[in-house]
């Protein structure tokens, strides 16, 4: 059977950063990525990132992916990259099975860093399965990766960061955004993103939700309505908006299937998006040798995912005996960066969530 020291499942921002740091310590690493290209969701992000310089602030996501790939290249003798490769299972004995280009293979790593990210949450309303109703991530992929417009006009559900950003990207691609709805009475995403949208004349309707989708073969219009403070629909506030695309962006939930399979101790933490693994300060889960980083450990920004990846990479390598003199320094730097990214008002929710999963 194939072996490696550290298998990294997922080649997004967290996974790439984990690979770079583990390899820089001297570990032999295998990145397993289900897509054709590395970079994960970064390849769809046309906007500039927040954070500080250490997390590539003010650089566009698509360009951060390029930077990470260049860093990766420095350690190419120690990093094996598998693309088009989906991890199917982590078995009872730690063996990982993989499908790559219609081939089935297995690998037995000494440690594994799971950086599988998150998937979009769904929303239930009548006719929610009509063609024309898409996840925000799907719309992003379609237009930013494949250059295909999802339709003529869009109503966005969700005024969190993703909803706001994808709305902006839709306008960039020449597609009309008719309105952004959010069930909550307050805009969830960063207000600068919101201002950007408002400036273009797109209404953001807080305390609103989609009540009904209409269409025979595909979406033709949606009925929206207002919500009261208990999130109950207020009768008589319904109105119709004609649109051929409804985009759903109501949050992400960590993609934790593999962690469950591996037997990790999981906890339901709404602040972090759903079930997440309990972990120690080195990002090791309750199963020895299984580390996590990025959205799979709790939904946050790509900036913190990258720092977490770096931290997990360092610790996993150290645990396998690859110690460098500056380990403590690097370790502390990661912790400090994470603390600063999570400080302040916006990070409050994350901090509250993380307190509950610390081991």
């Amino acid at each position, binding site marked *: 059977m194939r072996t490696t020291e550290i298998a990294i499942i997922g080649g997004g921002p967290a996974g790439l950063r984990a690979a770079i740091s583990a390899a820089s310590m001297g570990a032999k690493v295998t990145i397993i990525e289900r897509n054709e290209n590395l970079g994960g969701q970064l390849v769809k992000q046309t906007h500039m990132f927040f954070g500080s310089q250490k997390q590539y602030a003010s650089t566009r996501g698509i360009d951060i992916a390029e930077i990470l790939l260049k860093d990766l290249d420095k350690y190419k003798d120690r990093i094996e990259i598998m693309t088009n490769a989906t991890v199917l*299972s982590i*078995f*009872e004995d730690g*063996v990982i*099975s993989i499908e790559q280009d219609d081939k*089935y293979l297995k690998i037995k790593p000494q440690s594994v860093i799971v950086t599988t990210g998150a998937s979009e949450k769904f929303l239930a309303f009548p006719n929610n399965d009509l063609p024309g109703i898409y996840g925000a991530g799907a719309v992003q992929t379609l237009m930013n990766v494949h250059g295909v417009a999802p339709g003529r006009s869009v109503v966005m559900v969700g005024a969190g960061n993703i909803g706001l950003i994808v709305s902006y990207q839709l306008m960039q691609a020449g597609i009309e955004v008719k309105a952004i709805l959010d069930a909550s009475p307050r805009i969830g995403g960063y207000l600068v993103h919101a201002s950007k949208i408002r400036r273009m004349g797109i209404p953001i309707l807080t305390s609103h939700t989609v009540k009904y989708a209409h269409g025979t073969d595909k979406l033709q219009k949606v009925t929206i309505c207002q919500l009261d403070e208990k999130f109950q629909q207020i009768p008589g506030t319904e109105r119709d908006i004609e649109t051929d695309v409804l985009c759903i962006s109501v949050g992400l939930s960590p993609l934790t299937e593999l962690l469950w399979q591996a037997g990790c101790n999981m906890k339901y933490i709404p602040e972090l998006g759903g079930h997440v693994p309990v972990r120690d300060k080195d990002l090791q889960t309750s199963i020895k040798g299984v580390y996590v980083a990025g959205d799979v450990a709790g939904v946050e920004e790509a900036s913190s995912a990258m720092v977490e990846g770096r931290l997990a990479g360092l610790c996993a390598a150290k645990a396998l005996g690859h110690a460098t003199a500056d380990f403590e320094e690097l370790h502390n730097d990661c912790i400090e960066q994470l603390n600063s990214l999570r400080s302040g008002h916006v990070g409050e929710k994350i901090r509250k969530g993380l307190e509950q999963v610390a081991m």
Partner: protein
Amino acid sequence: MNKTASVVIIGGGISGASIAYNLAKKGVKDIIVVEKKFLTSGSTGRCGAGIRMQWGTEMNCRLSKFSTEFYETANEVLEYEGDIEFKQGGYLIVAATEKEDEQFKKNVALQNSLGIPTVYLTPKEAKKIIPHMDETKIISATFCQKDGHLNPFHTTQAFANAAERLGVKFMKYTEVTGIKVENGKVVGVQTDKGFISTPVVVNAAGGYSKQIGEMAGVDIPVYAERHQILVTEPVNQMQDPMYMGFALNVYIQQTPHGSFIMGRSGENEPRDLRITSSWDFTEKMAKDACTLLPMLKDLRVVRQWAGLYTMSPDRQPIYSKAGNVEGFYMSTGFSGHGFMLGPVTGVVMSEMILGEKPSLPIEKLGLDRFEKGELLFEPSVV
């Protein structure tokens, strides 16, 4: 909260539900079924859910014939509002060795003598029944159209609903922690939700029945063994019967829903209560399926899972009362065939508990057969 019952049945699988239904139908009041999780959460809900009358011992033939005939009208008899999805697409059992071929000839004669309409087929004839099989992999086959497949969840639910209408209480999410025996007699069952006073306890706990026996001080010579199984995406109907081979160690069937369910026995499966997944199973199963039914190579696996077989020394059920503890009964050791025997289990166990004359000669299936060395070895099992 403390309770009193006339009978406590431990285990909410097909056996427990069927025994409860049959006892209640005979007029027994105050029956409680205690289930650690939810109905079918154990082996019943994890099984392949096939039913066949093609066996190598008279006992198994008769037990399964009784059950098959019951299942034919179970929706109506149990007045179930859903559908137990009984599909009688038959079992095509293939022989891959000369020895197996010889055994099959004997089996067919035995089965026919008991009124089971099995036929013996050449590979060519078998291929007519499952056109996508590679007939060069087999020597002969036997086929019984009356064999089939059911939905285990709905089937158990059908028994349970009927039992509930007759007054049976099901305590879900209730774990048995002890069985109280005084002066050689059962007096009650301790659970995490309180004590239940009862003079009769029925052990229908499947993989956990050895542990339940120990709680009453009864030694049952069974062990739990992990068996694995997988299911594919659904496709339009293409295979009516179950494809099964003993030497080939495989069973593959298409459910009415369209998905294929297939399983095999592992060489080194753990003999404890573990139900984790192994890659060894996935690979061997996929290989077997593609070799024997080559067309399935494009079928996608959606999920693999595992459940427990409760193995008895001769791979036949144990329908028995305990020799040393009065009021303690057991229905266990089905060795992978407990689901299909559900209907007969309920009938014979209720008769045993009520001291009635058994409908079938099950006295040979008692616990004492192991002490006496009177084992009834079943040759035809996966």
